[in-house]
């Protein structure tokens, strides 16, 4: 190779490495939404992603409808939808009963079950395979803002971490960077839920004296001011009490099926970081 060309190649490489390191130094460890340039890139590339996903879904749908059992598939889908709706209602009612029984004599408690929400379709997943996030087809034009909670029929999915006019990125519950303040529905023990590999979560900071058992339902506590109180998060899969550890090792199986996310609901809540906390009397 021509020596001058080789020198130019290496200078090109040095410049790109320098730019990448500068980007990393500005962004590592910081929570940020998309900048205007990134929003422009997303607005251009997301429709392509959406089209590819729709094409794949159409091919899959044709295959399933015409080469499989047509009626059985439709009935199965109808029954699954009905079951998911009933499950969500059941979880909400269970939480209501628990909360009402506890606060009936002490507090005047008002809870609104109905929050305004926007349905969105999942059009893409994290391309790296190391992190857990999804791209949805609604953005700021639909009323979405940073840190809004995202749920589906089964439970908490995640929260918005970046928003553009027509698209948004959701950090999933099962990502290592995700942290949701939760409590055990039965015993009201508190903890912070963080993601693990293989689509499980761990409930951190559960004291060794805490009453937690396999099968316990985990719900949001509302203390992080991001997720409303009482949303189903998951079920305790395993509790390990190691004598030399300060806290119990509680593994949680999330309620939402992250391998089959197609539609999600975004709860239109104000960004808690932009509004002061409300004082309780």
């Amino acid at each position, binding site marked *: *190779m021509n020596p001058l*060309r080789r020198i*130019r*190649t290496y200078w*090109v*490489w040095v410049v*790109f*490495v320098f*730019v*990448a*390191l*500068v*980007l*990393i*130094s*500005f*962004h*590592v*460890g*910081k929570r*940020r939404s*998309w900048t205007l340039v*990134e929003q422009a*890139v*997303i607005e251009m*590339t997301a429709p392509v992603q959406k089209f590819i996903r729709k094409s794949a879904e159409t091919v899959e749908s044709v295959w399933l409808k015409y080469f499989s059992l047509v009626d059985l598939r439709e009935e199965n889908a109808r029954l699954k939808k009905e079951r998911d709706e009933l499950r969500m209602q059941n979880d909400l009612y269970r939480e209501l009963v628990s909360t009402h029984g506890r606060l009936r004599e002490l507090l005047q408690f008002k809870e609104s079950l109905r929050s305004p929400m926007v349905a969105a379709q999942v059009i*893409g997943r*994290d*391309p*790296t*395979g*190391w*992190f*857990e*996030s999804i*791209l949805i087809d609604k953005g700021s034009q639909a009323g979405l803002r940073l840190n809004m909670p995202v749920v589906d029929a089964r439970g908490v999915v995640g929260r918005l*971490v970046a928003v553009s006019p027509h698209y948004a*990125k959701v*950090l*999933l519950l099962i*990502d*290592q*960077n995700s942290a949701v303040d939760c409590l055990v529905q039965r015993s009201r023990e508190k903890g912070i839920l*963080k*993601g*693990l*590999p*293989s689509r499980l979560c*761990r409930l*951190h900071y559960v004291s060794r004296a805490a009453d937690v058992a396999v099968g316990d339902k985990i719900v949001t506590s509302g203390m992080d001011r991001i997720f409303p109180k009482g949303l189903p998060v998951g079920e305790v899969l395993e509790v390990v009490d190691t004598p030399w550890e300060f806290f119990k090792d509680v593994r949680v199986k999330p309620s939402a099926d992250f391998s089959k996310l197609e539609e999600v609901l975004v709860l239109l809540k104000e960004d808690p970081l932009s509004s002061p906390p409300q004082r309780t009397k």
Partner: protein
Amino acid sequence: MNGIAPVSFDIDLVIVFTACLLMGSGSTGAAVFAFGQGLLIDILSAGFLGLFALIYVVAFLCLELGSRFFDLRSAQGQFLLVSLVVFLKQIFLVGLLDVFAFEVLLSASLFLWFGASALSSGLIAPVLFGILKTLQLRIAGETKETA
């Protein structure tokens, strides 16, 4: 420990296309492509901006240096170089994640995933090289005819 690990193995088409561009269009084009794809991945992913941009630029450098030892015009060279660079890229990624305080769950199965990813990417490289070369020749032929 709250570690992370890849969800599934993948075929790294970015490195394959960077190698194609390195052979066909020269190093500047390949470097720009690698950097741009890395940035796009960073924007779409839940990681921080600049991570994959850096990784793919370093992968480009490995391809550039490796092209002196492996002949990118032969299928064997394409397979070996792309496989090696993909494997090194995975190792570098694990190292970077560790530096930036992500706890990576190291295990034998992780390196098996890396090996499978490298092998698959290497196997698909000659196919893509062939397709792109055919397209290039066809476009060049059509350009000559119109001229």
